[in-house]
C-alpha cells in the first residue's frame, strides 16, 4: 500500500510539468490574448503526441504507452495546473474508446492528427442501446474529426458530422470554443455505459484530476501573492484572515489530490469500486476547484478580478469542467444512489 508516486511516476510528472512550463505557461492566457480566442493549445497536440501523452493509458497492443489510470491522473493534474485546453480530454477518452475496435482512428487521435472535441448534454438525453438524441454543447470541436460525448450514464465516440446544426456560441471561459448542436438518433462509433467497463469512471477521474490541478494552481497563485503583497506594513499572508483562507485552500487541494490518487489506483485495477471512487473524486475535486478559484480572487483583492493576473481563470475553468457530463448536482444525485463501498 503506497499512495505516493513511484520514482517512475514522478519522472512522468516532471516530464509533463517541464513540457508545459516551456510550451504552455499560464502567461499565454494573459490580457494581450484576452477575448474569445478559442483553443489556445491546439498547437500543443502534435508535440504531446510525440511525447506519447495522448495515448499514455491506452494499452500497448492498442498503440498506446500501456500505462495506467494512475499515470493518466497524475498527468491530468498537470493539465489542470497549466489550464491546458479541456480538448485534451477528448483525445484521451477518444483514444480509449477507439483503441479496442478501430485501431486506425485510435492511432490518428494519439498521433494528434485527428482532433477530438467534447460533447455534454444541455438537457435530457433520450435513447438507449447506443442510440442518442438530444441537445448538446460541443467544446473545442471546431477543428475536430471526432466527438466524445459524456452524459451522466454513458460515454460515446462520434464522428463530428453526426451532430447537426452546429452553431458557435460565446463562452464564459473565453479561452475555448463552444458550439450548440443536436443528435437525432445519433449512432456512435463506439460507446459504453456506466455499468459497462471503466470508460465512464475514467472520464470522471480525469475531470477530477484536472480539477485538482486547477485547485492546486489557484492555491499556489494565492500563496505566492500573499507572501509578497504588503498592506499595513506587512505581507497580507501574515494576517489570519488571509492566512486561514490559504489554509482552507490547501486543505481542499489536499483532499482532492488524495482521493484522486486513491481512485486512480482503484481504476488501474479495473475494480468494481471504480465508479464509486471516481464519483467521490469528482465531487471533492470540482468542489476544491470552485472554492479555491473563488477564494484565490478574494486573496488577491482588487487585482484578483482583473484580467491582469490569472486568478479569475481558475474559477471560470472550474465552472466549465463542472458542467461536462453533468454538474455537481447531477454527480451528487448519482453518487447518493450508488451502493456503499467500505
Amino acid at each position: 500500500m503506497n499512495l505516493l508516486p513511484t520514482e517512475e511516476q514522478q519522472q512522468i510528472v516532471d516530464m509533463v510539468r517541464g513540457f508545459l512550463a516551456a510550451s504552455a505557461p499560464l502567461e499565454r492566457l494573459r490580457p494581450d490574448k484576452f477575448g474569445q480566442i478559442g483553443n489556445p493549445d491546439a498547437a500543443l497536440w502534435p508535440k504531446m503526441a510525440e511525447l506519447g501523452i495522448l495515448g499514455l493509458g491506452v494499452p500497448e497492443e492498442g498503440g498506446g504507452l500501456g500505462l495506467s489510470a494512475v499515470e493518466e491522473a497524475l498527468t491530468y493534474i498537470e493539465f489542470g495546473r497549466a489550464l491546458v485546453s479541456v480538448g485534451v480530454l477528448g483525445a484521451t477518452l477518444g483514444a480509449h474508446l477507439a483503441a479496442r475496435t478501430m485501431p486506425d482512428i485510435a492511432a490518428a487521435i494519439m498521433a494528434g492528427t485527428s482532433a477530438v472535441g467534447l460533447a455534454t448534454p444541455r438537457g435530457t438525453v433520450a435513447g438507449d442501446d447506443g442510440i442518442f438524441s438530444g441537445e448538446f454543447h460541443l467544446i473545442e470541436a471546431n477543428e475536430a474529426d471526432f466527438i466524445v460525448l459524456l452524459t451522466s450514464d454513458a460515454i460515446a465516440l462520434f464522428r463530428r458530422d453526426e451532430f447537426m446544426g452546429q452553431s458557435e456560441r460565446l463562452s464564459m471561459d473565453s479561452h475555448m470554443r463552444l458550439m450548440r448542436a443536436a443528435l437525432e438518433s445519433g449512432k456512435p462509433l463506439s460507446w459504453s455505459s456506466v455499468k459497462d467497463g471503466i470508460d465512464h469512471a475514467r472520464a470522471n477521474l480525469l475531470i477530477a484530476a484536472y480539477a485538482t490541478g486547477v485547485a492546486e494552481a489557484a492555491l499556489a497563485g494565492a500563496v505566492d501573492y500573499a507572501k509578497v503583497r504588503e498592506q499595513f506594513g506587512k505581507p497580507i499572508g501574515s494576517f489570519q484572515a488571509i492566512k486561514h483562507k490559504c489554509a482552507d485552500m490547501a486543505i481542499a487541494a489536499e483532499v482532492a489530490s488524495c482521493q484522486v490518487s486513491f481512485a486512480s489506483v482503484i481504476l488501474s485495477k479495473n475494480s468494481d469500486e471504480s465508479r464509486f471512487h471516481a464519483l467521490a473524486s469528482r465531487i471533492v475535486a470540482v468542489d476544491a476547484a470552485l472554492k479555491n478559484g473563488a477564494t484565490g480572487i478574494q486573496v488577491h483583492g482588487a487585482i484578483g478580478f482583473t484580467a491582469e493576473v490569472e486568478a479569475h481563470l481558475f474559477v471560470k475553468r472550474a465552472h466549465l469542467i463542472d458542467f461536462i457530463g453533468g454538474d455537481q448536482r447531477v454527480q451528487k444525485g448519482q453518487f447518493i444512489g450508488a451502493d456503499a463501498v467500505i
Partner: protein
Amino acid sequence: MNLDYTAEDEIFRAEAREWLDANIPREVRPPDGPGMREFDLGWQRKQFEGGWAGVSWPVEYGGRGLSLTHQLIWYEEYAKAGGPNAELLFVGCNHAAPTIMARGTDEQKSYHLPKILSGEVAWCQGFSEPNNGSDLGGLKCRAEIVGDELVVNGSKIWTSSAHLADWQELLVRTDPAAPKHKGISWVICDMQTPGIELRPILIMTAPGHHHFNQVFYTDVRIPLSNVVGEVNDGWNVAMSTLGFERGTAGMLENIRYGAVVERLVDMARQRLGASALENDDIGQRLAQLRAEVTAVRAMTYRIASRAAIAPPGSEVSLARAFFSQLQQRIRRIALDIIGPDSIELPEDDPWIRPYLRTYSNTIAAGTSEIQRNIIGERVLGLPR
C-alpha cells in the same frame, strides 16, 4: 415602530410612479464607452428636469430638500419600475456631492453641485493606489504645494470610468512628514489637466470591456482652491464620504436585489416544477436567499430610521458586509438553476456577467476582511 407613510408620502409615491412610468428609458443601456456616458448623463438630466434628481438634496443646491424616507420611496419605485443602473453618476451624486456639501467652500458648492445634479458632468474617484488597497491611509500619491497650486505626482488605480469622467475626487499626500492619516488632502481634479494619463485595466467579467483604469499623474497642477476642507485634513473629509457609501448610498441596489431573487424563484419553478422545489436543494437554498434578501430590505429601513436621527456610523458595515456576500450567493445559484447553458455567454446575458461581477463586491469599497475588522473593533469594541 411603523411602516406607515403620511398622506403626503403617498402622494409623493404616486407622483414618482407616474413620472417613472412615463419617462423611464426604454432603450438598452450601452455597457461601455461614450454611448454609456451619453445615456447616463441624459437620464440624469431628465430626472433633474422632472425634479427627481436630488430628492433628499437641500433645496439650496437644487434638490427637493425632502427626508431620507422620501429618498427611499423614490428608490423603491425606481427599482419596481426597472430603472437603469446608471453607474457613471454614482461617484458624483453619492460621493463627491455629499462631501462638497459637508466640507466645500461656497465657490466649490455653487460651481460643482448644480453640474452634478443636472447631469452635466461625470465624476470618478481617485482613492486607491497600486500599493494601498485595504490600507487607504497608507496612500503615497504626492502633492507639493507650489505657490497657489498643488503639483501632483503619482498614480491611482481602480478608477471606474476615468476615461469618461470630467472630474475626479482625488486623495493626495500633502505632508509626507506627518503621521499617515494627518498629511492627506481631498482635492477636486479636472480630468483634462495636462499630465494625466490613463491605462485601461481589463476585468474578468467582460472581454474588451473598459471599466477600470490606472491613472498616472506627472506634474499635474491643481489650484489650491480645489482642496475641499483643510489641507492635510483629507482623511476626515474622505471618511465622511465612505460612511455615506457604506450607509444609504447602497439602498437602491439593496432594494433591486429582491426582484433578482424573485426572477430566480420563477426560473426555478419553471425548470424544476413548483411542487418539486420544496425539499430540493435548490429550493431550500433559494428559500434561504429569499428570506435573507427580505431581511436586507428590513436592514435598509432600519438604517434609514437611524439616519433620521444621526449620520450613519460603523454599524452600517453590518448590512454592507452581509449584502455583499449575499449578492454573491444569489448570483451563484443562478448557474445551478440555469444548468448547462451557464457556460454560454450571450451578448445580452443577464446572469453570468453579473455573477462574475459579484467577485468585486467583497473587495471594492472595503474588503470583507476590512469590514469585519470594522465590525469587530468599532461596533463590538474588540481590541485592535
